[in-house]
């Protein structure tokens, strides 16, 4: 036995390190997902509220309520429901949403790209703003950007995203008329491109439909800006702390004394500040999936967050479970990527 294990160990170590990291992380995903599925299933059932009563309204009679419960499978015991659910989920069937009448998988496939597109661009802009401001304010300490970023850093932690969103709509759509109407991912009179990735900006380019591309980028502008304005503050502050410590550290002083150019020194300093930045970006990315809900609602985005809130309010069990599964999968993937990047960025760290 021990020999066999020892042999396995030899094979394992023979695999290149990045592959080893990725494989071991991916294997962990399976039990994690199953755990998430079980916990959410049980937690969702423990929520108060009865969808049958809410829906039937005037039509509620003992007979219609019973028929409705049977349709949803609510008449079975909890364990029977769970076994059915897992069995169906393995076949890619997450049930039918009570409040959209679509299979939950269809709903999620439509809404997840909407949210992902929004938060991906928002994250890119957040990183761009946050890191750029941080570096400039450290390198040119006491300068205009430094002082400005301090004020912004304070404000960004305090202003709520829905408020920023409403203000942007008010000025850029209502008063100035520069921004497109704040509802949906694409203009009402422009048909969305055929789905390839689900990102309208990418799909429209693939389809060669420039009209759809400009329309969808236009619609993205305000919500992406909202999310970036609110979230870049935190990233900026953290990058600034990390980067300024490193920028003033002994090895940078040594590099400078050795006559390396300022550009190289900044790059090396940034390179050494990466691990915490990666962590925070990963965290924010996962966090935004659910936290973008207010921005989604304001801009009528039709994304995952809105779906989740509606399903909680309406006790739409299949939809809610579907959302939690997708969110969990997404966060696990993001964290896995973060861990992998982290290990690659800093070989001393074993996650």
């Amino acid at each position, binding site marked *: 036995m021990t020999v066999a294990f020892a042999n396995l160990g030899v094979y394992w170590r023979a695999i290149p390190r990045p592959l080893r990291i990725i494989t071991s992380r991916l294997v962990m995903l399976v039990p994690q997902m199953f755990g998430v599925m079980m916990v959410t299933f049980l937690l969702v059932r423990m929520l108060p509220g009865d969808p049958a009563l809410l829906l039937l309204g005037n039509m509620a009679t003992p007979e219609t309520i019973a028929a409705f419960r049977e349709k949803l499978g609510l008449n079975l015991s909890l364990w029977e429901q769970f076994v059915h659910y897992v069995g169906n989920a393995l076949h890619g069937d997450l049930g039918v949403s009570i409040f959209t009448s679509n299979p939950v998988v269809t709903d999620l496939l439509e809404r997840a790209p909407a949210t992902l597109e929004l938060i991906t661009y928002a994250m890119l802009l957040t990183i*761009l703003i946050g890191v750029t401001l941080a570096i400039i304010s450290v390198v040119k300490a006491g300068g205009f950007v430094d002082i400005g970023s301090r004020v912004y850093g304070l404000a960004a932690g305090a202003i709520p995203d829905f408020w920023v969103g409403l203000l942007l709509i008010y000025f850029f759509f209502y008063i100035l008329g520069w921004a497109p109407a704040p*509802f949906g991912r694409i203009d009402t009179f422009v048909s969305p491109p055929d789905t390839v990735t689900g990102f309208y900006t990418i799909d429209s380019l693939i389809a060669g439909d420039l009209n759809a591309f400009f329309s969808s980028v*236009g619609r993205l502008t305000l919500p992406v800006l909202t999310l970036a304005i609110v979230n870049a503050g935190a990233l900026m502050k953290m990058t600034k702390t990390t980067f300024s410590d490193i920028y003033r550290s002994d090895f940078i002083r040594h590099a400078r004394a050795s006559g390396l150019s300022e550009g190289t020194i900044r790059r090396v300093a940034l390179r050494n500040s990466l691990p915490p930045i990666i962590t*925070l970006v990963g965290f924010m990315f996962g966090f935004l999936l659910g936290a973008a809900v207010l921005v989604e609602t304001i801009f009528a985005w039709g994304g995952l967050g809105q779906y989740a809130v509606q399903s909680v309010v309406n006790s739409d069990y299949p939809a809610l479970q579907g959302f939690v599964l997708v969110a969990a999968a997404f966060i696990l993937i993001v964290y896995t990527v973060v861990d992998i990047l982290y290990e690659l960025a800093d070989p001393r760290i074993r996650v």
Partner: protein
Amino acid sequence: MSYTSIGQTGRAVPSHLKEISVPTFPHTSNGMTRRLPRGIAAGSPRANWRRTTTVKGLFAGLVAAFMATTVLGTVGAFAQDAKTTLVVAAPRTPESLDQEYPPTEAGHEVRRNVFERLLTYKQKKGDDGIFYEDFDTIDGALAEKWEVSDDRKSITFHLRKGVKSALGNELNADTVMWSFLRGWNMKSNFHWYMTQIFKIEDFDTAFQKVDDYTVKVTLPNASPLIERIWINSDLGILDSVEVKKHLTDADPWAASWLATNTAAFGPYFISRYKPGQEVVYDANPNYFRGEPKLKRVILREMPTSANRVAAVQAGSVDVAEYLLPRELALVEKAPGVEVHKVFGNFIHRVEMNNAKPPFDSVKVRQALNYLVPRDEMLKSVYFDTARFTKSPISEIYPGFTDGFFAYSNDPAKAKALLAEAGFPEGFKTQLAYRTGDQLEEEMAVILKSAFAKAGVDVELLKLPASTLVERYTKGEVPMYFFRDMAIVPDAAYVANLWLNSASAINYSKFKSDEVDQLIDSALKSTDEPKRLADMKRVQQITMEQAPWVFLMNPGYQLATRSNVKGYSWYTPNGNAFFDLSKE
């Protein structure tokens, strides 16, 4: 239901994560170096150059894209024919397209526009220029003629010939019979009307095809509603030829197909159903009243009501549904926007649990009604878009009377009544309302301070909709807000829903033997004057017994651009796009 807003969720990064300790000495990464092209060491001038340009290029590209598209995105929006396309901003898209799905406001709108029924009311123009249903005059729709037997136990429909669905399939007795059969077997809305109102027990004895264009429905007992029920928007006729193509062994009534597709004889069919985003209605060129003037209606979901206001003001949409009274007052003054107001059939009240103390006492219930500052509510919550509810029957329905309403704002009288009931010092209780319902929240706060004047200490409970419904169904909350409408314009039908102690939705547990008996007889009797007299008596008893705290008729309002003409109102409160046109 209210859809306007959602709770505030947590935001931004928890503070402990903002400061992550950082290694303060350098480390080089082999992994990183390896990824660079051979011959270029990290930090060499060339690698450095490559990286900065990428970052700069990306930044410049992004900025350019953002600036360009903000301007470009707005151009070309109204390229299509603006006169025949209507854009509607709605709080939410319908939950299902199937008329057997439980009735909701968004669902009723689909039914109004997609399905056609056997009978209808004639239209009449009100003094306000709005088209209403004339509840006294029934007209044929898909049934050209109909006959009711003298004993009012059977009705025979003679179907209009040559009526076609959007797909070109013709209406005949078979399509009607199959629609009935599906409704019966789906055990939902159709089944509810047939069993609860008509007391039908067996399908085959009740529904008969007489010939290819004639269908007969026979009831076990006489019913005063034998004609009116067929006008209900839940009882549309399906294009069975199309629907039958989508039957499967697991789904013999095409429940899943009809949930997201339409096939019927109404003025529109739905060509695109994207829940949470939009619904596209396209005109049925074969509609029997003629092709609709609006060829396409695009309904966009916009959950934030402030944005619906901004969109209709800016002209990005033609119609904004379900705005708050405050917003209506604002938008009414805007140029180019018109607000249509109907005092329809909604009744907004606080129901009390009549089965449990202290609300088992009539005097306590009356006392609370005397404590409501209705004028103040009307002004500060409803901005004068509502009216007082003075009866349990909707004011627009035949048989309504406000003659028994005596509840002025009279705290002294309320205190006296409470003292008589044995609560001279008042009592503690709870009042529940829906999360996200701004109007109910505002009213709850006003009621709390108003009730406190007589020592009634109210704890406010804010609950998610499904939790609230579950709890009042089980009788677990002493007081809760309730806003509802009954779509059949018949006083006995309405009273039966809310006031009959046998009704499953009489959640206030109101029980009066005389009311029960009057309602039961009115549901069977065909003597119309006596029915109306009995319903007057029911209103009198109800107002005296005060099972609810009577509040407001919030009405139904629709904000449109001024060039949208022909607004009409129907009892389910959904908009009828067929009646609308654009100038």
